[in-house]
């Protein structure tokens, strides 16, 4: 039993479900949980810098209200009272939302993203907004205009990206769980680098309303948490058929927690040979194959197969995502919100200066590329070609899922690189997304679960992919695997206990 007002770091050691259970039982209050998180944030932000904005006042106020509702029996859900963090590309009414970009340095949305509203309705307390690669463009959280986020396992290393702030915050116990978004691996890759669990759901499962778009046809919001059970419970809460998002899908199979069974007997698992090639770090490969072995021992049928087309996913992705981004980001023009250049002459210079000063280099790079591939004379050769490739990649997955329940592989070719190593060579950085990107092109769900650490002590993530709407299969496989090990937190997360 916690002491009231004491250092409640242990509250943050708990999974979201365990903490909520204590709150429901009256052993801990929601404000106590929020305070524990805020204390941890104060303690570690100097090192980790997972947040762009911490809303201490708002969180405590929200926690008080939630507590009343819990006591009144109005909030009984499995996450009520738990403090969480939201990636800073989801709109939160009255709370600064920057996309980690200077161009939105002062943007305060007038409405809240549907996924966040769903969380709030379930009694989740929003602590603040997490750092990310600017507009979710990047794999390291180093392209943020508000400073880099550091990996809680080793602050010399990146947390991955683009949801690096969300994943680092979860790993560092600076929240009970977080929401991230995944356009090309932006939940799964940083989850893998930070030793936490993250799900990218089937496209259309979680409403994109209020998610500031990067690549609209690829973006999905998903949970980041300490374990698979938390992720399943969070996904159950945030998934909804939203009439405000035309691409939202009506599903009646969102009871994801029902799949939390330690049973993979007879499950067919395929490992793409194409994922185990020369680009893959040896230690990562060993960890992945060991994880596959665990599942085999539990009764799954595991075999290698040729997925094909893997090397075409990245060029197709960068064409499509950049094209969509070039259009999606044109609304940032210094007129309605955000940054406007201080000095300019005339309208066009106002546009150009505001955007050039407001966007960072990686964002500009993708906007330029996207504008080019859509421009007159290049549309067919680049954009349509990429959409045709996407169709072929979807077909390849369809063929694979006709044979396998789950595709198993690494979430990333290597563990977290050192800060500053990646940005010098963008193309090299893009190649790091090779295992995650095709899931976004095909719209399929994927999960990353920790499966060990390398010799540097950095976490390795196991990625499981399922067919569209088959989240339950990957949740079951991931949960079964997770049952074979215990959750490891970075030393830094618990330091204050000493």
């Amino acid at each position, binding site marked *: 039993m916690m002491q009231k007002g004491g250092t409640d770091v242990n509250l943050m050691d708990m999974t979201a479900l365990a903490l909520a259970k204590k709150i429901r039982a009256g052993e801990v209050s929601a404000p106590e949980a929020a305070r524990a998180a805020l204390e941890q944030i104060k303690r570690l932000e100097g090192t980790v810098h997972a947040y762009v904005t911490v809303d201490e006042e708002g969180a405590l106020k929200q926690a008080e209200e939630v507590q009343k509702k819990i006591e009144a029996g109005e909030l009984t859900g499995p996450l009520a009272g738990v403090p969480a963090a939201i990636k800073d590309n989801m*709109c939160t009414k009255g709370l600064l939302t920057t996309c980690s970009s200077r161009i939105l340095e002062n943007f305060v949305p007038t409405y809240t993203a549907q996924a966040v509203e769903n969380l709030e309705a379930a009694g989740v307390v929003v602590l603040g907004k997490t750092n990310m690669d600017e507009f979710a463009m990047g794999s390291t959280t180093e392209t943020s205009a508000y400073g880099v986020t550091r990996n809680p396992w080793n602050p010399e290393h990146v947390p991955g990206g683009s949801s690096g702030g969300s994943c680092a915050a979860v790993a560092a116990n600076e929240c009970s769980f977080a929401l991230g978004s995944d356009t090309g691996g932006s939940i799964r890759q940083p989850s893998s680098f930070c030793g936490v669990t993250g799900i990218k759901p089937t496209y259309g499962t979680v409403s*994109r309303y209020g998610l500031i778009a990067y690549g609209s046809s690829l973006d999905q919001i998903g949970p980041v948490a300490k374990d698979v059970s938390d992720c399943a419970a969070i996904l159950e809460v945030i998934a909804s058929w939203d009439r405000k998002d*035309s691409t939202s899908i009506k599903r009646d199979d969102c009871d994801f927690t029902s799949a939390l069974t330690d049973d993979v007997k007879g499950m067919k698992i395929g490992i793409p040979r194409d994922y185990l090639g020369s680009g893959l770090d040896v230690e990562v490969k060993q960890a992945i194959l060991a994880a596959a072995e665990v599942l085999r021992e539990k009764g799954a049928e595991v075999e290698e197969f040729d997925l094909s087309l893997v090397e075409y996913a990245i060029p197709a992705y960068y064409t499509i995502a950049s094209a969509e981004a070039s259009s999606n980001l*044109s609304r940032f023009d210094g007129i309605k919100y955000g940054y406007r250049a201080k000095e300019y002459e005339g309208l066009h210079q106002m546009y150009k200066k505001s955007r050039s000063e407001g966007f960072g280099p990686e964002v500009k790079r993708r906007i330029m590329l996207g504008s080019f591939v859509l421009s007159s004379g290049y549309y067919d050769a680049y954009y349509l070609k990429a959409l045709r490739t996407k169709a072929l990649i979807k077909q390849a997955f369809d063929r694979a899922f006709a044979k396998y329940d789950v595709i198993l592989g690494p979430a990333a070719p290597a563990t977290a690189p050192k800060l500053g190593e990646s940005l010098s060579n963008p193309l090299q950085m893009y190649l790091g997304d090779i295992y995650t990107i095709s899931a976004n092109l095909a719209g399929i769900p994927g999960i990353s679960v920790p499966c060990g650490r390398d010799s540097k002590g950095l976490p390795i993530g196991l990625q499981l992919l399922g067919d569209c709407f088959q989240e339950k299969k990957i949740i079951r496989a991931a949960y079964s695997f997770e049952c074979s090990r215990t959750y490891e937190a970075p030393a830094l997360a618990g330091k204050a206990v000493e």
Partner: protein
Amino acid sequence: MAKQYETVIGLEVHVELATKTKIFCGCSTQFGGAPNTHTCPVCTGMPGSLPVLNKQVVEYALAVGLATNCQINQHCKFDRKNYFYPDNPQNYQISQLYLPICHDGGVEIETEKGKKTIGIHEIHMEEDAGKLIHDEWEDCSLVDFNRSGVPLIEIVSEPDMRSAEEVIAYLDKLRLIIQYLGASDCKLQEGSMRADVNLSVREAGAEKFGTRTEMKNLNSFKAIAHAIENERERQIDLLEAGEAVVQETRRWDDTKEYSYAMRSKEDAQDYRYFPDPDLTPVYISDEWIARVRAAQPELRTEKLQRYKEEFSIPEYDAGILTSSKRLADLFEEATAICKKPKKVSNWLMGETLRLLKENGQEPEDLRFSPENLAKLVNLADAGTVNNRVAKEVFEKIFTDDIDPEVYVEEHGLKTVNDEGALRSTVEAVIAANPQSVADYKGGKEKAIGFLVGQTMKAMKGKADPGAVNKMLKEILSR
């Protein structure tokens, strides 16, 4: 001898649809309102907002397409047209390029030279832009997004027109079809119907089209006619001087009666269209098409024919009555009540149009009810009021939609049908005007008119002039 030139014209007509809400959000389309009060995150391009298509927009676009004999793209979708301008909050307009809802249609127009079909290349759905207000005193413009996201259809014609007359006949035809469908009120002055003119000239007999220009900002039929004439001459002058016409967009300034190029280095005409990933495709089933077709109201051509046959109305009159949906509706509804088509037609063709002209109004502005018109027709037909009184009463109906039965009663305007009272008045007038009586008897037929007038005056207008005339002649012939 100077060369002969032919003008080749195609139109892009934008029509604001009569929906209650915008095309992609639940904001009102109501005209007016303080700046930015009919807005939401979607139609102001707030980060994270997403569009959802208003079904009624598809219904209207489909109805217009069917009424203009178009083929329907049963699988249609929306594309983004990317360009920066402050009235365009997302800096892309959601429109249709690759698969517009309708294509390959046409309408028949009639000009002095006869009938002709103007082809319709396509009709697509899109969103309107906001409004820019230019500050009088400061070097800035103000952006109001109330109109941003109002649904439009753009009707793109083939380059089939050769004169301003044909252009206006075509626009008039479109306007009537769309008004009849109830898809828009099509008011040029208020901008709910707008036409951009694509024009080129070529030497008479030439096969190839010349280089065309696009003219924008044409707010009236007059402006369209002037702009066409002006641009035709400008292009011919260029060609005669051995210069080339530049393909460009030009803006018409109606007060200066002059157009100028809108081109700038910063406005590269490269819209980078691509399918909008935020919107799903629209599938229009055979059943949907059949339903819209079945619900299609009678259009002008059919109505005109029916008026001639069913009501024996002359072609000219039927043409005028059907030239406005409002006139035609008034005609049919009043006729249904009083069963006197010819008389109703006379009131509409005569007094109604006269008063509209006097007041500078359009038939669409008529506010009186068919019931009151029908009542007046009956009153006049039964001789309850005479013609002069009837016209006076009609003016009241026109302005205030009064009930003529009540009005006539209250103001004591009924024709006096009392034979005795009339006879004694007539006799008194004869007695008082011996000179006129003598003139009449001396063969001056016209003198009778004066006596009728005097009698009417004495009766305070409430007599039937025909009856007075008859009685005067009868008494004087004794």
